[in-house]
């Protein structure tokens, strides 16, 4: 028995040695995000799709060799009510410490976590390509202390660009229909507060009368207080800004309370293609933003490829449910990183930062370039940067109404 154990030991040693050696060949990408959310799950799938495509081509060229990519993920649970920022950061630190990723993609779901995660990234010094967190503080921090925060990049829409796109949509409503009274309802979280704060300034400056602006805690299920005030005040437009499942109540309640206003903003449960069946037509007339293309692709080969490839990889049902925020930029983030690694010829973080900054390529969300504060700019021209899409639900179809370059029609008031 002793002899057989002794014979096994070298074999065991070889196995142990072989394990890490195999893993070391792969370039590890960390995905610490809220995997309990639709956005988190879809973003992880999108990043995995990009990894699969790249690996099928042999991997990423690093100097003279090609190395495959590998994704390791961890659920930060940051979108769940009551989970503190520190818990999400602890999960991210665990992933970085144990798996030693060469870079992070997707990253923080909540802006509160993103802003804090930037300091951890400044300490561990690896590229961090976030694709969900929206806070404008991201740009402020990179702009104020470039050397410290230079490893952070954002490929998704930020609240600042969302304000710009919403402002253009509201300007259209003012010009075309003469609207000038608006009521805001928003989730009491950083990105939504930032967006509504910025939009309030823009719209007041453009002559709109803001009748009210009510923050709701995550998980709220009764919006009658604001809807009553909006109705009594004669609001012509109600702007919701929510990424929680419970905001589906708002759509139904606005309909049942017969609020005679156009609802135009962001309600995450009303974004997927399956929402019409879910809400049984209660969303007819609703104008909803897709923060980035993906659920509805841009009319470019690259954008269409992502949506179609997603469907082939995960099935038509999941393709029909792609969320409006996260998947497109997550797919692009892996390609941006792969391109930077190839150009740098190494995984050195500082070299990668320089190469990521030089990125100029077509992605699923539009043109991928970075501003001085490391964000992809989002506007109404997909050839100049990323483009968000606004659509209106009409008889079960999502009709694109923004940006003008790809719009299938204008906003209509038929369902008011």
């Amino acid at each position, binding site marked *: 028995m002793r002899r057989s154990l002794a014979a096994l030991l070298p074999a065991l040693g070889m196995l142990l040695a072989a394990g890490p050696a195999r893993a070391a060949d792969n370039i590890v990408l960390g995905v610490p995000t809220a995997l309990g959310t639709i956005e988190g799950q879809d973003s992880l799938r999108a990043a995995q799709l990009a990894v699969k495509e790249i690996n099928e081509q042999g991997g990423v060229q690093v100097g003279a060799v090609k190395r495959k990519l590998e994704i390791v993920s961890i659920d930060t649970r940051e979108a*769940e009510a009551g989970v503190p920022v520190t818990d999400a950061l602890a999960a991210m630190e665990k992933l970085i410490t144990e798996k030693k990723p060469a870079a992070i993609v997707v990253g923080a779901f909540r802006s509160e976590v993103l802003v804090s995660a930037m300091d951890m990234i400044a300490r561990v010094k690896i590229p961090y390509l976030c694709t969900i967190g929206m806070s404008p503080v991201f740009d402020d921090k990179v702009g104020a202390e470039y050397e410290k925060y230079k490893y952070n990049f954002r490929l998704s829409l930020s609240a600042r660009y969302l304000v710009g796109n919403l402002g253009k949509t509201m300007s259209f409503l003012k010009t075309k229909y003469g609207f000038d009274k608006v009521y805001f309802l928003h989730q009491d979280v950083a990105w939504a507060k930032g967006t509504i704060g910025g939009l309030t300034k823009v719209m007041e400056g453009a002559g709109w009368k803001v009748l009210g602006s009510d923050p709701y805690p995550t998980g709220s299920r009764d919006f009658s207080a604001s809807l009553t005030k909006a109705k*009594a005040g004669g609001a012509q437009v109600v702007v919701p800004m929510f990424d929680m499942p419970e905001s*589906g109540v708002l759509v139904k309640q606005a309909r049942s309370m017969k609020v005679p206003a156009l609802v135009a903003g962001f309600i995450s*449960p009303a974004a997927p293609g399956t929402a019409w069946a879910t809400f049984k037509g209660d969303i007819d007339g609703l104008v909803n933003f897709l923060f980035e293309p993906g659920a509805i692709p841009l009319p470019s080969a690259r954008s269409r490829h992502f949506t179609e490839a997603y469907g082939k990889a995960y099935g038509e049902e999941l393709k029909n*449910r792609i969320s409006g925020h996260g998947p497109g930029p997550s797919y692009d983030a892996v390609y941006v990183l792969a391109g930077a690694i190839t150009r740098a010829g190494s995984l050195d973080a500082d070299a990668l930062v320089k190469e990521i900054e030089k990125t100029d390529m077509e992605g699923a969300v539009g043109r991928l370039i970075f501003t001085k504060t490391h964000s992809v700019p989002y506007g109404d021209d997909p050839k100049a940067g990323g483009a968000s899409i606004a659509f209106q639900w009409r008889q079960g179809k999502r009709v694109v109404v923004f940006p003008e370059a790809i719009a299938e029609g204008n906003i209509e008031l038929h369902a008011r």
Partner: protein
Amino acid sequence: MGGLLASTLVYGLVSSATLLLTALGFSLTFGLSGVANFAHGGLYLLSGFTAWLLMTHLHLPFLAAAAATVVLVGLVGALVYRVVVMPVRGIHLAEVISTFAVGVAIIELFRWLGFTTYDYVLPVLVEDGIDVLGVTVDWQRLIIVAVALVLTLALWAFTHWTKIGLALRGMSQDEYTALSVGIESDWAAMLSLALGAGLSAVAAMVLFPLGIISINSGYDALLVALAVTVLGGLESTAGMIIGSLVLGFAVTLTGNYVGPRWGEVVYLGAIVVVLAVRPSGLLGKSKELEERV
């Protein structure tokens, strides 16, 4: 009438009925058996997903799915007693911890199974709405008020006019005396948990159609049930009704006149203030009796 005052009255009543329905199962179980069933939120969520699964996969009509769900979840409640509570019966802290663990396990199981998308909805019983005091309110919310009222009256009648109800009340008043007249303690406690679980399912069947069945609603249901019963008095039905009215109107008033974000503070503030000033709740007697002894 219209306006904010009328809205406060109408939606305050709806909010109170919602709270009452959510708390009814939790309060009934505690009132009849002394078991604080902290799995209440998990059972509420289980009810929503069970009905959805029955409708989607077995193609049952909503009312049939709802009736089956109430029975099934009631049985789960009985099972929770037999498997989890009975071995630790009488050790209050162990009862709380074990039922809480069951509730969390149910909720997190659904999260793990991927029930996090936006597809889980139950239909409203009647579409559209009507004007009450000049305020438009949908029929589903009026149904919630009616169901809360009917259930409360029915439960009162059950516990006061039926043999089983009287036996359960007898058990809750003095377990040893009840045993001496042939009321079996474990049977009564198991029945109270089954009834409480069934009531949480009824609440889920009328409340979930307002929106989407989301994972966090399980935790919220437990928080609401705790706030209402702590405020009204853990073992008092009248206290629970008053607690629901106080909290419901306080939350609506706060939402209408201060801001919706402060509504959550009202729940938690009510628990803290009542525990500090009157630990038995508005109509509860347990602490007073304990101090007298």
